[in-house]
């Protein structure tokens, strides 16, 4: 991802604080490169859970589809735990209809300075951290 997207995700986490922030990673279908990050309101309005605002999510996904792009992942923040998928995150990632190749980005604000990590979560619930490459 570009440094800009990395900064946008950290900003989305801070901006939503003390609630959980979230957003969508848009890129080429099935790809790993972020073309755009879209901040989405947390419909749950909670510091412990997030739910992507349905209408904003639909609009962002359909706009991406119109451009030949696709949702390739989801970012959300953890306000007081590490940047690692929780059991709830894993359960959500392995639901039907959620593509198994999505990238799950978590920004933790637990330690004062934000930390961003990205994961793949396979159909069996296995968590695999992946490196995040930053380009200008």
């Amino acid at each position, binding site marked *: 991802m570009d440094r800009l997207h990395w900064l946008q995700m950290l900003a989305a986490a801070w901006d939503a604080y003390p609630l959980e922030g979230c957003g969508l990673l848009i890129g080429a279908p099935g790809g790993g490169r972020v073309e755009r990050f879209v901040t989405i309101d947390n419909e749950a309005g909670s510091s412990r859970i997030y739910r992507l605002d349905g209408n904003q999510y639909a609009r962002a996904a359909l706009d991406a589809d119109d451009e030949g792009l696709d949702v390739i992942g989801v970012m*959300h923040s953890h306000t007081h735990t590490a940047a690692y998928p929780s059991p709830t995150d894993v359960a*959500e990632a392995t639901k*039907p209809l959620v593509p198994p190749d999505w990238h799950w980005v978590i920004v933790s604000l637990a330690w004062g300075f934000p930390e961003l990590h990205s994961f793949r979560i396979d159909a069996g619930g296995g968590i695999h951290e992946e490196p995040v490459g930053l380009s200008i």
Partner: protein
Amino acid sequence: MVTVSVRLPTVLRPAAGGQSKLSVAGAAVGDVVDRLIEDYPALESNLVDDEGSVRKFVNIYLNDEDIRFLESLETPLSEGDELAILPAVAGGQ
């Protein structure tokens, strides 16, 4: 009976012959869902439960509005409406 366009999420496209956008006729959202399942039976278990209700992890949008906030499957359709089916996304720390 009107014709609307239906957009399918990436994961459901293989079950619909690889199509991302379909034209389907129906008077209400439920007719369109029935028609989709009739034409592409592989979609059924993904879209509705045994009682025929839309599954919890599925969101259906009519012109960007979640049908749960309209009249669900009874929501009437107008010519040219756009339906989109997307996975619900949530989580928590």
